[in-house]
């Protein structure tokens, strides 16, 4: 059984890596003789990659970006969960708050950058607020949906056995809504990466977005391309970590769905 599973994983990896490998080769070949300074050969870009990023730049630009993303993202998740549970639990609350939420959600977070600058300056706080203002919505809205969809029979079990408020939240509401919450968190993660870069393009002194703009303005074109590749790699890595956590936390859910498919 476990060796079957190993074979399955290898096959999935081969399938997953096939197209990226093909694209890589295509890029390599099509750019190999390129004379254009905006579209340098991939070999050049890769040679530059190590010089640019395996340097003090890691501590100066990459780490600060990731730390801001991390704190902003987790704050957004905490905020979205807290508000989502409160809003999902009460119909009155939804009626009052939903129109406001629709309005706030419709505002593209990048336009908030100038406003946040006015209030909190151009430091890390501004950038994290931009990330929070974008990431909070998918978590919030999915949590509301998850809390509303909680099973009414389980709700009666909770009442019948007189389960207290805290235990109800911890053993029923959060795990019951967790499949939707994770869907929201996954959307929020990709939004967070985009906003991490955008927030560093204005009035910043470090970060991945700042570096990219600097390279582009100083015509360091291969360096600019390495920044884009690095962002892609960071995105893949974060998605991979997310998937890992999700598979662990939602193991019961995927198992339940499998058993329902098999029995129907």
């Amino acid at each position, binding site marked *: 059984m476990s060796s079957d599973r190993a074979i399955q994983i290898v096959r999935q990896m081969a399938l997953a890596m096939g197209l990226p490998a093909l694209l890589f080769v295509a890029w390599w070949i099509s750019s190999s003789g390129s004379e254009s300074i905006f579209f340098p050969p991939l070999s050049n870009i890769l040679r530059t990659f190590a010089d640019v990023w395996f340097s003090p730049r890691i501590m100066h630009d990459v780490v600060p970006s990731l730390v801001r993303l991390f704190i902003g993202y987790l704050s957004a998740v905490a905020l979205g969960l807290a508000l989502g549970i409160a809003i999902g639990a009460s119909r009155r609350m939804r009626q009052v708050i939903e129109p406001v939420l629709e309005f706030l959600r419709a505002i593209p977070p990048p336009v908030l950058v100038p406003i946040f600058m006015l209030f909190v300056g151009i430091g890390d706080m501004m950038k994290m607020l931009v990330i929070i203002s974008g990431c909070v919505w998918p978590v919030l809205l999915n949590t509301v949906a998850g809390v509303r969809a909680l*099973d009414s*029979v389980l709700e*009666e079990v909770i*009442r019948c*056995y007189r*389960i207290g408020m805290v235990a109800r939240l911890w053993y*029923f509401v959060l795990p019951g809504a967790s499949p939707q919450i994770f869907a929201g968190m996954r959307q929020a993660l990709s939004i967070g990466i985009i906003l991490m870069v955008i927030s560093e393009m204005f009035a910043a002194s470090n970060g991945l977005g700042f570096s990219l703009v600097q390279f582009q303005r100083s015509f360091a074109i291969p360096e600019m391309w390495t920044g884009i590749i690095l962002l892609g790699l960071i995105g893949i890595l974060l998605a991979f970590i997310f998937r890992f956590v999700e598979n662990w936390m939602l193991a*019961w859910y995927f*198992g339940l769905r499998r058993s*329902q498919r098999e029995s129907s």
Partner: protein
Amino acid sequence: MADNTRANPSSSAMVEVIGLRKSYDDHHRSIEAIRDVTFTVGAGELVCIIGPSGAGKTTLLKCIAGLLAPSGGQVVLEGQPVTEPPARMAVVFQEYGRSLFPWMSVRENVDLPLKRKHLTAAQREKLVNDALAAVDLADVHRAYPWQLSGGMQQRVAIARAVAYEPHVLLMDEPFAAVDAQTRADLEDLIRRLWRSLGITMLFVTHDIDEAVYLGQRVLVLSSSPTVIMENIAIDLPDDRSQLETRSLPRFAELRKHLYAQIQASKQGRRPAG
């Protein structure tokens, strides 16, 4: 000792339902579900409630459980009026697939209601182990509910109720969705638990045979708006077995009588007076 209380159920009332009414308000009109239901269940009794589909059986049970507020009348448990789910009452729901928490193992499901009971970890562990052993599921306590068959899932729900140490156990058509063979086993399990634990049981079903086989007494409900059609004692021997009890002439008589009652109830006949 337990047999004395059973022989004389009126000696101490465990559950009293007094003039219970329930209507649902739906926008402009009011739908009357339960018109007037009064009955008493003595301590240690096993009473089955039977009625045609749509007879308000589940509504009645939820009112008794404190999950629904009645529109009139009241439910009294051990002398205390029921206004919310009482601490000494457990419910086994009909939808076994939805009444267990799918993110918890079997053991965690049984353990959850005990968290509030101010017990030591060792006491809780013993209650959970004993309850799982009582329903013959001691070896699957680490599985998730959805990994088990329907009958086993309902046994987990029964174990959860048993571990809670209720004085009254309410069951809402708990075996309606399992196959016939499993159902017979579960009925025997219920009889066995009732006799060994000495608790009071109220068992709602739409199955006439099940009601006669399980109960000491059967209450027949009319179709909605619900009143009680009949309250009939089941004078079968206390030791019941699927093979022998069901082939007794008396079983057939009771079954026939209740069948006629249910048919009358379906046609809308009400009790005289």
